[in-house]
């Protein structure tokens, strides 16, 4: 029994619960009746209007958005490869998410930050770690739209 359960459970794991894996990986939020969208699925109430979670409906978020702002991280904890670009991406549903911006030159962005503002980007996923139980851990990143 235990072996069977483990086998059924051996697939990759999302790094955060709002990343949905499968054939079409995407982000899923909770939308309150007031319009606010949240990314944490265990939230008990809306911090904008105060409505409780029975006012929430799941909402699938677009894989495309626009960069609002970014920074280039040159110094971090041991084991985190620098430099890399961190970005706040606005999604068309009206919520922002944070992740790494890949396939861009950080030197170019530092020289001409305007190039980053409103840059159209799309979400991709990749395995970023292996957890203690041996599962692949999958994160999402953004890259300039092709």
């Amino acid at each position, binding site marked *: 029994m235990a072996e069977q359960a483990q086998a059924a459970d051996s697939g990759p794991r999302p*790094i*955060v619960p709002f990343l949905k894996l499968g054939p079409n990986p995407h982000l899923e939020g909770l939308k309150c009746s007031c319009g*606010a969208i*949240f*990314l944490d699925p265990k939230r008990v109430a809306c*911090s*904008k209007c105060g409505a409780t979670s029975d006012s929430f409906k799941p909402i699938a978020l677009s894989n495309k958005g626009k960069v*609002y*702002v*970014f*920074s*280039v*991280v*040159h*110094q*971090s*904890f041991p084991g*985190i*490869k620098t*430099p*890399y670009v*961190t*970005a*706040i991406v606005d999604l068309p549903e*009206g*919520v*922002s*998410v*944070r*992740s*790494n911006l890949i396939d861009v030159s*950080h030197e170019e*962005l*530092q020289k001409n*930050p305007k190039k980053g*503002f409103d840059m159209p980007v799309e979400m991709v996923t990749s395995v*970023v*770690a*292996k*957890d*203690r139980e041996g599962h692949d*851990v999958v*994160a*999402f990143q953004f890259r300039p739209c092709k």
Partner: protein
Amino acid sequence: MRNVYVLGTGMIKFGRYPEKTVPELGGEAALIALKDAGVTIKDIEMFACGNLYQSNAMVGQRILQQIGQTGIPVINVSNACATGSTAFREAYFSIASGMYDMAMAVGVEQMGKQGLLGGTGGGDPAYSTEGKLGSGLMPAVFGQAGIEHMRKYGTKLEHFAKISVKSHKHATKNPFSQYRNEVTLEDVMNARMVGYPNTLYMCCPTGDGAAAAILVSEDKLKQFAGGRKRPRIAASVLTSDPYTDRDLTLPDVNTLTRRASKLAYEKAGVGPKDIALTELHDCFATAELVHYENLGLCGDGEAGEFIDKKGGCHPDLGGFAPVNVSGGLLSKGHPLGATGVANICEVVWHLTQDERAKDRQIPNAKAGQAHVIGLGSACTINILTI
């Protein structure tokens, strides 16, 4: 609410004190403040102690175990970088409310070698999002606060860098500052990048430190001031981050500061033009720039021009609306719990022409403000008048 005054202040030079304990550092600052006030620990009726890294370890009581166990109520306060200023506000309320007539606030921190990056938290590190889903660390958060200003108003890297040059110059006149070296614009621009657009000299160093203040009612002021003029706390405001669209993804350091600033000016009955000096929370140069506008020292979108015209510089340097004449966190360092009380000390020293600010005195200062942001978020603004 009753009037509350700052009777005495104490601060130790920010720096590295690995041979001392947190209660020893806090006790030293407390004793200086008590002496400055002309009172003893036996006169203190309530004590609010701000400390972050030992917030579960009764730092306030351990300070009294060093300097006098009188059995008074002690509150240990933790509120991120606004820890010390929140402790100060607790002391203020204990008197304003009519409950007590003399209270002490101490802010103290020993950072050791810990940087400003913050902690990683527990759990399986494979699920740690830092570096995998962007960065939530301070340099990235405050870098992006500056980038947002660039996006809105076309602000340049030079503007942020000039702030660092200015504050380092100010620090050369402050013996309480950890670093007192001047830097040139080239030094700042060419220094190692930490988190774009903040280079090394645009990020505050950490450090150990402590600062203390003795707060009194009008009655006690008359009894102990001995004719000395002491500043009144004209406003002591605390806000948290209200809901804004991106706040949960990228902490919004502006909205809660603007709200605190509006409330503080209203309560104090003064405006930005009446403020002779501002000590504001320059954990990064980018933060200082956005707070010029948040505190109304210049109009929205005008911070770059304000800097180019020497806004924020000491009048001795040909500037106006001086900001962080202490050298700011960029030079003093940022012992988290101590910062909020230390910047109130600086404002007091200018209002009272205290010799501890003699080489950097703002002439004829009648009002000053101290602003702190604790990310997460908390904002305090204390306006003092004389």
